[in-house]
């Protein structure tokens, strides 16, 4: 029942050839009621994505109870909140979650849907940034890039842990590929902010909201962060995200990305 006056959803191939991925315009759809005024309203909605492992698979580093509360209640709550916003507002229809995050960030003056949308994105990303039997060190291209941008893997790990320990209040720590600078960096963000809003590409994230670690580690952020780096972080996920990112960011001489 709606017609869209601008089209941020141009076919992907044209978009890639013509210009780099840019923040889509916030466009309005005008509703045209064709005579019969049927109450068929198009509603977009998101489902709660399950982590790629069972809820007890990260024991003993992250307990099943934490997953039950963090994923089953908090993450689910964000999804439901997001869907409630989408049900009310047809202007938001048609965006992918990535685009919705960027659009609702609105250059720093976020719309009400932002918190829910970005937290859904953040948590989907966080679950996938971990795996049972994680930790250790990355291999191939990811390791090379880390060594190039941080000097050594140990230096990167130190920077990451330092960021986690010095973050005040709620937030996340990210390994991110900076688009303009064409390099990896560690950034920490407050509350729900996500590097997508600066057009950078997240590679790994660590949830530093207290709800992520309080049941298992109480106030001991240091142990939680170290356990994440040593036993949980999924470098496999990082590899596949880097591979995709290399399609958008030229990291050096053209080569077949082996990520």
């Amino acid at each position, binding site marked *: 029942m709606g017609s869209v006056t601008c089209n941020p959803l141009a076919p992907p191939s044209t978009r890639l050839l013509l210009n780099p991925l840019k923040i889509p315009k916030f466009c309005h759809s005008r509703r045209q009621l064709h005579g019969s005024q049927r109450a068929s309203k198009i509603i977009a909605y998101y489902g709660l994505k399950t982590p790629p492992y069972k809820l007890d698979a990260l024991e003993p580093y992250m307990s099943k109870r934490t997953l039950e*509360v963090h994923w089953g*209640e*908090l993450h689910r*709550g964000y999804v439901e909140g997001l869907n409630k916003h989408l049900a009310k507002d047809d202007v938001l229809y048609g965006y992918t979650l990535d685009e919705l995050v960027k659009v609702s960030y609105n250059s720093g003056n976020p719309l009400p849907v932002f*918190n829910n949308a970005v937290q859904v994105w953040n948590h989907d990303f966080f679950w996938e940034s971990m795996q049972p039997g994680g930790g250790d060190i990355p291999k191939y291209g990811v390791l090379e890039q880390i060594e190039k941008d941080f000097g050594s893997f140990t230096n990167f790990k130190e920077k990451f842990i330092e960021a986690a320990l010095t973050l*005040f*209040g*709620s*937030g996340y720590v990210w390994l991110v590929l900076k688009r303009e600078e064409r390099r990896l960096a560690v950034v920490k963000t*407050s*509350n*729900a902010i996500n590097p997508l809003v600066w057009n950078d590409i997240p590679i790994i994230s660590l949830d530093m*909201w*207290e*709800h992520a670690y*309080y*049941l298992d580690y*109480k*106030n001991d952020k240091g142990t939680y962060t170290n356990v994440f780096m040593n036993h949980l972080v999924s470098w496999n996920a990082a590899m596949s995200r880097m591979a995709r990112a290399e399609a958008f960011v030229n990291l050096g001489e053209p080569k077949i990305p082996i990520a």
Partner: protein
Amino acid sequence: MLIKFLLSRQNALEPHMSKDTLEYHWGKHHRAYVENLNKQIVGTELDGMSLEDVIIVSYNKGNMLPPFNNAAQAWNHEFFWESMKPGGGGKPSGELLELIERDFGSFDRFLEEFKSAAATQFGSGWAWLAYKANRLNVDNAVNPFPSEKDKKLVVVKSPNAVNPLVWDYSPLLTIDVWEHAYFLDFENRRPNYISVFMDKLVSWEVVSKRLEIAKARATKREMEEERRKKEEEEENSEDEAVEVYVDGDESESE
């Protein structure tokens, strides 16, 4: 102080706030803020200032200096413990209740607003009931007709370590909505925590006491301002008098 004695018996607020929570919240989080603050200010000009002054100075009009987080959190937590007591809850009385009814309509409406502020503070932070004397944010601005009615009770929420002292309000009551305050007892169910706090823990006597102090301070400030204004006026009028004679025609002055 009474609350410190109670905290040393950390099961004093059971079953509404568990011993475990107090052990970590007071024994680890609060303690760390105090210790880290001391480390940060020793030997600097902030050493020896009152905690409230340290907060205002390090808030630096929003461009916070390093000691701010620790100083404000140390203050906030002490204020928070003192806002509670075993067997608390119920309703306020006396002047506090009158002002609440005047500024919010009814006690229930106040309760709704306070609970909503606490529940919707996104991320870490605090919710407050504060007394706001009518002061404009411009240095030489003056309310031409100040009256008791301009001084209001307000509900505000603040992120991370910020507290209403930096806005020149007088805080009366606070609830800590950092997740560490309720996660062990309520997991993610923040609204339940808020309800239990209001129904079973709040110490209205302490809040009333704070209101008295806040009002007295506001009145004293007003009197000082008036006095200062009068002094300025007198100085100005003296100057004017001198000028007139200097400019006067010499022949006429005789």
